[in-house]
């Protein structure tokens, strides 16, 4: 079994689907654990965007799992091959679990280059075609603690034909089988976990087929692909995920790719997802926005200002489109710091936030940095957004533990009136 060490310990299951617990003994040495529902630490080539290790470690609790993507790494194959020490050492990473995915969910991914035997990733120099052999060669050089099998997930475009969806299911299973074969023969991947990837687009039968078949393979967990924000609306996503997770073993984790918006995260947790990619804070940062959505549900009479009152006080931005499918547009969960209203606002980005930016700087300063195109804007926003987002996940776990998910959802959406 590829990675039999990873253990999922559930402390609570709601409605047979929504889970709270801990993923234990992750990492080659089995020395780390990750609370679920949880999110991974999103990076570009091992670096959290804009941050060096000093600025990264101002964050009080980092996810224990760092995500890297082959789309960043593939072009450096020769270098890694010569280095021989694995990616973690190459990048000077802190003590963390390394998860290697195929694609970067925050990067544009052109379609139309997938074949029966290959998928493509886009590096800084252009398209790189991967066969399973090359894919696995890369994994042997990266030496992650855990990776997803190669998969064909090009089904998110509207109007993808049934035939195409079926192909993605079949190909992904074939790739998985081939990956597992190579994995078993590779000493460098001893103790490394492999996740199977469930495909199937927006077609229920295909999803079920993919789930059942993937579940038959000796994998440590499951990636749910093709559900990206923009691929379908949340109602359908929830429906399909709920159906899929029904077919998956309870004792293995489920990682959802390409979904990061807080409201979608909540809905998907309730549908049975355990893990999410952490790219949403990065997207907000690139927009010059600071995440500011609330996620407090413990009653606090002192801060009992209703969201309506906050609207009136002009504290909340006009809502970004809740149903906006374009991941680059501002969402209702953030504030646009380039907006002139922040020019002389000397409050922190979010009152009570313990991140470096909020402890040391004000909205007026970050506004100034954005207006003058200063690099520090990205650094400060990334620190805040990462902190805010990971605190949100902590709130999700607490809400689950205390049966407050409904309250949390309303708080996050800004419809809670007490």
């Amino acid at each position, binding site marked *: 079994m590829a990675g039999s060490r990873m253990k999922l310990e559930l402390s609570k299951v709601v409605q047979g689907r929504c889970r709270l617990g801990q993923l234990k003994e992750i990492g080659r040495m089995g020395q780390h654990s990750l609370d679920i529902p949880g999110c991974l630490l999103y990076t570009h*080539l091992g*670096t*959290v*965007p804009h941050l060096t290790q000093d600025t990264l470690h101002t964050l009080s609790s980092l996810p224990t799992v760092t995500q890297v993507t082959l789309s960043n790494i593939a072009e450096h194959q020769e270098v890694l091959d010569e280095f021989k020490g694995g990616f973690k050492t*190459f990048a000077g990473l802190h003590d963390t679990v390394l998860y290697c995915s195929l694609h970067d969910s925050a990067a544009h991914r052109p379609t139309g280059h997938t074949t029966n035997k290959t998928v493509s990733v886009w590096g800084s120099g252009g398209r790189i075609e991967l066969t399973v052999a090359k894919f696995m060669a890369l994994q042997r050089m990266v030496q992650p603690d855990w990776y997803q099998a190669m998969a064909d997930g090009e089904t998110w475009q509207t109007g993808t034909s049934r035939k195409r969806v079926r192909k993605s299911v079949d190909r992904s299973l074939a790739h998985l089988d081939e990956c597992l074969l190579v994995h078993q023969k590779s000493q460098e991947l001893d103790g490394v976990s492999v996740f199977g990837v469930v495909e199937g687009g927006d077609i229920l039968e295909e999803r079920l087929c993919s789930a059942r078949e993937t579940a038959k393979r000796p994998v440590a967990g499951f990636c749910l692909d093709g559900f990206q924000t923009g691929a379908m609306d949340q109602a359908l996503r929830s429906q399909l995920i709920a159906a899929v997770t029904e077919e998956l073993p309870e004792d293995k984790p489920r990682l959802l790719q390409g979904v990061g918006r807080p409201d979608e995260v909540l809905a998907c947790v309730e549908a049975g997802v355990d893990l999410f990619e952490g790219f949403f804070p990065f997207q907000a940062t690139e927009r010059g926005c600071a995440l500011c959505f609330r996620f407090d549900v413990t009653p606090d009479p002192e801060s009992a200002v209703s969201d309506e009152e906050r609207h009136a006080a002009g504290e909340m931005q006009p809502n970004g489109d809740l149903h906006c499918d374009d991941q680059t547009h501002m969402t209702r969960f953030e504030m646009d710091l380039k907006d002139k209203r922040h020019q002389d606002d*000397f409050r922190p980005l979010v009152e009570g936030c313990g991140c470096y930016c909020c402890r040391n700087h004000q909205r*007026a300063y970050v506004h100034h940095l954005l*207006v003058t195109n200063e690099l520090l804007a990205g650094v400060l926003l990334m620190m805040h957004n990462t902190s805010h987002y990971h605190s949100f996940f902590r709130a999700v776990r607490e809400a689950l533990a205390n049966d407050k998910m409904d309250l949390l959802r309303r708080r996050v959406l800004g419809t809670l009136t007490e």
Partner: protein
Amino acid sequence: MSTVGGNMAAPITSETDGNIKENSMFLKKTLSAVPPLTLRIVAECPVTKARACDLTLPHSSVSTPVFMPVGTQGTLKGITADQLEGLGCQICLGNTYHLGMRPGPELIEKANGLHGFMNWRRNLLTDSGGFQMVSLVELSEVTEEGVKFKSPYDGKEILLSPEKSISIQNSLGSDIMMQLDDVVSSTVKGPRVEEAMHRSIRWLDRCIAANKHPDKQNLFAIIQGGLDAELRKACLDEMTKRDVPGFAIGGLSGGEEKDDFWRMVTLSTDHLPREKPRYLMGVGYAVDLVVCVALGCDMFDCVFPTRTARFGSALVPWGSLQVKQKQYAKDFQPIDPDCQCPTCKRHSRAYLHALFKSDTAAMHHITIHNIAYQLTLMRSVRQSIVEGRFPEFIRTFMKRMFPSPDQYPGWAVEALASVNVTLE
């Protein structure tokens, strides 16, 4: 380390109103009797004109010789205030022209000055805006009143006068302010240079008169005179008559020949008071720093180390290393194996080379390294002066920097010889 001016905290306990008034006036007088700048000469090189000093300023003390990184718009290009402090930086620069435009002096005053706005606890030096006037703005016109130019942001006509420059700098609250000088490129010859020199003296007096906080903010004069020894001498004679806390040597580090450059530097330090700091503006290349310390300068600033970092150029004792070049793709050493900066302790040239293709953080890593390089260089220079072995330091430094003695820059050899240091 005492803080002067606005930070007095001790309450005055007293019984009558009259007493309270008397005590507070006494305190004010005492406090204003403490100058906002003191220079203590710790060591002087017996061979060259170099000094090692402790410069005490309102926010913290500074060890000289010192290199001051430039944080133009109230930020040091991707580095947080904590990171900068962690590197040992005691003073850095902000730019009056840029900050005066955006976000403007009123807003910065509301934010508790530039220190409050940036959240920088140590010292700040602001330049006057004069240099940008001439270098950045195409159609600027200099009159006796000041520098007239069109704002690049809204097209409005603005006049930067000595009074306006000082007013902005007072709002910024910097520990050291620079006078507005009539800046002329060092490649310009003829009567314009003399006109600018005389005007700079008149503008110095106007700046001194306009300074609202002489008890907290130190106004430095800027010696002009181009590359003309007589004009420079005249400027030095006049300006040193004014009781300013420090002097800058200006009008150099433009496009002039290095042979002319060093001669003006040494002429200036020959005629500047020993017990006041000498700030050589716009100099930051390692060789230039070492030579000009030998010629008697204490303070330096330059955008070069931080600017070049963003292009992937890392400064090292043997020159520079272009991390983005192919040859470093598989080079698994750090930038400098002897460097103790956070970048070199953790990352290799190969990783940084790769990271430049993926994320802006690559630039930050190099920026941190370059600032560390500059600050470490100055620390080593200072230490060697204190320990009486500066000439030896210079020789070792030059040997490391250049592959062979015949590659030593001629001007540097001459300049060092003029202060009794012979290189091979």
